[in-house]
């Protein structure tokens, strides 16, 4: 169902963003900017141990501090917590406490909440809460948790694995046994996270007279937070309003229900006062859900020509102690098992997934969820095949990639690729970047003793997947549709209320671009609202590269329905046929008869205020709410290919990224400027994953990287200019768009690891098997390459 305007004015244009002026003038409204009379400030007392028994919590000194109103501890709220149970058989469930009870299970877990009339006093008083701990053996790494005789993170569990899942195709073992060549390798991606510049923040108010709770929180998923709060607090949803105002970056970190949100709500109910908690950066690095810590053990069987015969991967992910709402603890392993075959012809496949419970911080979403690790493993394996067979890495991809005629393709990982131009993306990238010349240049530099490397990676990305995908994932809430409600005002302006959110993606602009053309109105006459559950329709929120497709599609469908109604009214007034009514530049007219015209605002006024002038049977309203789930619900796929050129300094470990080029096909682009901004930003985060970012724990499970001087994010001198070209192959969704918010972040790890490995080749062969490529690690690879080369 591709619906395209015959003469689009706004769809597809590089329109300036509607949201920019308020951000540029300091008038954005983030949670920490809200003020309420009589606000009480919250600070959390957090565990200095990764795993310990809580013997006692002494609060009297804190309570005696002038200005302190209350201190809550785990025993106060022992009966509330966050649970998220997967329907996969054998899933071992956990309950994330709001404040830890008798056991703390990660460094930074909250054990008490201090409330004071001043933020500084609250922080002082938090230091006056004395907790007596009895340390327990921490299970830090996956191997610790899986070791024979390891203590259990949760006493009632059989072991420390949330659920064990395995898929083996019928002919896998035979193909492996019969294959002429097999490569086996372990791959690791370090724990890191989205780390938005705005930390988390919550303001909660409670009105006892109405028994009504309002929670302002910096979240990507306001309605799901409302449902999660209702479940955790045992309240009805009509008594809860969640408002997510401007959000200073999400990237998945703000797509979980957090205990602090529940705690602030609970404290507001208990104290009948507004509660405010603004997270500090240390708390954020300690406790805002981490991501990405994957360990893969991969086996690939291939023939003499480098064609894949069988592929098997065991996926282990270090999940921390609790299953998170709404994703459960199975998201990363499940997605990896699905997408590891990638854009390749894989005849036989085996995958197993082990989300492992440990004493690290809980694990949630981060842009690209699991795909950066899956892409890393599969692409790195193909690079090994290339080296073993003496082939160019590009050639190995060409021999294994799915071809245009293979689409739609049911992958052996169980996904349905609706369409794909990954081959076309790769070939355009190769031609555009003069790949052959790059190889010549590389030879020249190698002759001069310089270590230049090239990485090239194609990938396919599932986007805007809805019910059919999430049903398979066994999550308790199946994320399907999104809804956009369109209202025309009596003066002819359009208000779009959407169930998604926007935290940098520019959806305030692109949803307007989706709706404007049908009604012939300008973007300045459209207001888009998000985030307030009392105002916007129910829906899941913004994650998984879905919002433009789903809420945008819904907005487009609703705009067409509004246009139909306006056309019927105009036709009645003009005594013309409805199909002859045209909408342009804020005017409504009869095609070919420019004298019969009126302003859109006049027509809207008539519908609302002159009911006697509208056709009998038409309702005097201009409000349409439309839901869209991008059938069949298995997702529409975006194709891309990335290429990087690096130069490595084997004496310092420094990796200079000399070029980074992307070709991407995300279908019809609503706004190419925004698409390019998303790609560039995604690549920058991917470069962080590849080169810099790592949550380092010591062997006792203490997080060592608790400032931004230890946890390094890319700066303007770390990120090169990303060159981008587009292919536009319409999808079958409304308006032919595909999701693309995450894509940029998926490939950089695989690309840059390949480039560094390639660069080091003159020193000797080495397998770059772990990210990030800090200078220290690059030096180790260089040393290993030299000793292998001897």
């Amino acid at each position, binding site marked *: 169902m591709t619906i395209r305007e015959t003469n689009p004015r706004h769809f597809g244009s590089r329109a*300036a*963003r509607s*949201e*920019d*002026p*308020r*951000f*540029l*003038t*300091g*008038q*954005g*409204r*983030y949670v*920490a*900017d809200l*003020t309420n009379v009589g606000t009480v400030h919250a600070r959390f007392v957090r565990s200095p141990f990764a795993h310990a028994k809580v013997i006692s919590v002494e609060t009297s000194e804190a309570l005696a501090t002038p200005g302190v109103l209350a201190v809550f501890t785990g025993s106060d709220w022992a009966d509330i917590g966050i649970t998220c149970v997967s329907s996969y058989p054998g899933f071992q469930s956990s309950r994330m406490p709001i404040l830890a009870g008798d056991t703390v299970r990660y460094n930074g877990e909250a054990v008490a909440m201090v409330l004071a009339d001043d*933020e*500084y006093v609250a922080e002082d008083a938090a230091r006056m809460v004395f907790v007596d701990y009895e340390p327990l053996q921490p299970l830090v790494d996956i191997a610790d948790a899986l070791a024979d005789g390891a203590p259990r993170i949760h006493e009632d569990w059989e072991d420390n694995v949330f659920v064990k899942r395995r898929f083996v195709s019928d002919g896998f073992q035979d193909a492996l046994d019969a294959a002429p060549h097999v490569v086996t390798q372990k791959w690791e991606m370090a724990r890191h996270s*989205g*780390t*938005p*510049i*705005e*930390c988390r923040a919550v303001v909660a108010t409670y009105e006892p007279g109405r028994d009504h709770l309002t929670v302002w929180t910096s979240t990507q998923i306001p309605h799901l937070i409302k449902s999660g709060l209702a479940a955790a607090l045992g309240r009805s949803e009509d008594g809860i309003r969640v408002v997510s105002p*401007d*959000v*200073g*970056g*999400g*990237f998945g970190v703000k797509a979980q229900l957090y205990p602090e949100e529940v705690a602030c709500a609970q404290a507001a109910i208990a104290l009948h006062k507004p509660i405010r908690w*603004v997270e*500090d*950066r240390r708390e954020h690095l300690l406790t805002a859900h981490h991501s990405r810590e994957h360990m893969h053990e991969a086996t690939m069987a291939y023939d003499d020509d480098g064609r894949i015969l069988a592929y098997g991967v065991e996926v282990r992910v270090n999940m921390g102690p609790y299953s998170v709402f709404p994703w459960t603890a199975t998201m990363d392993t499940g997605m990896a098992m699905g997408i590891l075959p990638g854009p390749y012809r894989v005849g036989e496949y085996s995958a197993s997934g082990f989300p492992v419970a440990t004493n690290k911080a809980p694990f949630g979403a981060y842009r690209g969820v699991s795909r950066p690790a899956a892409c890393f493993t599969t692409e790195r394996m193909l690079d090994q095949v290339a080296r073993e067979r003496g082939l160019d890495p590009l050639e190995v991809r060409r021999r294994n990639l799915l071809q245009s005629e293979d689409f739609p393709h049911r992958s052996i990982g169980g996904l349905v690729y609706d369409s794909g131009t990954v081959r076309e993306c790769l070939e355009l990238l190769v031609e555009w970047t003069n790949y052959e010349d790059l190889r010549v240049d590389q030879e020249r530099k190698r002759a001069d003793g310089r270590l230049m490397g090239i990485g090239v990676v194609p990938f396919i990305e599932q986007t805007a997947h809805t019910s059919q995908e999430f049903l398979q994932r066994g999550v308790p809430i199946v994320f399907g549709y999104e809804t956009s409600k369109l209202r025309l005002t009596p003066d002819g302006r359009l208000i779009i209320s959407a169930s998604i959110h926007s*935290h*940098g*993606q*520019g959806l305030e602009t692109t949803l307007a671009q989706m709706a404007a053309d049908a009604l012939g109105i300008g973007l300045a006459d459209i207001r888009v609202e998000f985030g307030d559950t009392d105002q916007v329709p129910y829906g899941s929120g913004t994650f998984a590269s879905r919002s433009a497709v789903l809420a945008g599609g819904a907005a487009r469908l609703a705009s067409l329905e509004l246009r139909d109604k306006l056309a019927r009214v105009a036709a009645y007034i003009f005594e013309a046929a409805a199909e002859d009514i045209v909408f342009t530049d804020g005017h409504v007219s009869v095609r070919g008869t420019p004298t019969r015209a009126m302003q859109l605002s006049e027509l809207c006024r008539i519908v609302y205020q002159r009911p006697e002038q509208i056709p009998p049977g038409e309702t005097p309203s201009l409000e349409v709410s439309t839901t869209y789930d991008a059938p069949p619900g298995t997702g529409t796929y975006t194709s891309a290919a990335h290429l990087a050129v690096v130069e490595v300094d084997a004496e310092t470990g420094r990796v200079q990224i000399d070029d980074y080029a992307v070709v991407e096909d995300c279908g019809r682009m609503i706004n190419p*400027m*925004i698409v*390019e*901004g998303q790609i*560039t*930003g*995604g*690549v*920058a*985060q991917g470069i962080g994953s590849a080169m810099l970012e790592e949550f380092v724990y010591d062997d006792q499970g203490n997080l060592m990287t608790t*400032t*931004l*001087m230890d946890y390094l*994010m890319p*700066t*303007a*001198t770390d*990120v090169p*200019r*990303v060159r981008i070209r587009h292919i536009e192959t319409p999808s079958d969704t409304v308006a032919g768009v595909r999701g693309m918010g995450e894509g940029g972040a998926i490939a950089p790890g695989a690309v840059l690891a390949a480039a560094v490995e390639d660069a080091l080749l003159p020193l000797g062969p080495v397998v770059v098997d772990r990210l990030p490529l800090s200078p220290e690690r690059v030096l180790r690879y260089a040393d290993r390459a030299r000793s292998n080369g001897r």
Partner: protein
Amino acid sequence: MVDVTLTINGTTVSRSTTPRRLLSDFIREDLGYTGTHVGCEHGYCGACTILVDGEPARACLMLAVQADGLQLETVESLAPSPDALHEIQQAFQDNHGLQCGFCTPGMLMTAKALLADNATPTEEEVREQIAGNLCRCTGYSQIVDAILSVGPVVRETP
């Protein structure tokens, strides 16, 4: 409590404050200029960058009492009128130099200071100068382009 008198965005204000109050909290919560954002409170991310006597400074690394007698400029000072943007702001919009908007005020103030110091910076100089401001959304190139695109006239009369 300590009395503090300072000038912010051209207005002189006097307040009584605690000696330990951070300038960032003072600006945001006591004076109501919430355009200055706080991202790390340890002087690394640059979101709270303001101009103190014309020089960029981290509001989270100063105490309010240290600003006594000084001239402060925050992002709210840039736009010439409520319905117009400063050229640097306009350049950020034109070049898509912002996404979520959280780092933007600090980035704009850093940009203003760097253009005041160097009217015709190279790309490398711009990257060096803004390397103390973290942006998690854009990947920086569009911010660099925005700063480079600001006309020389504006650069010379900041």
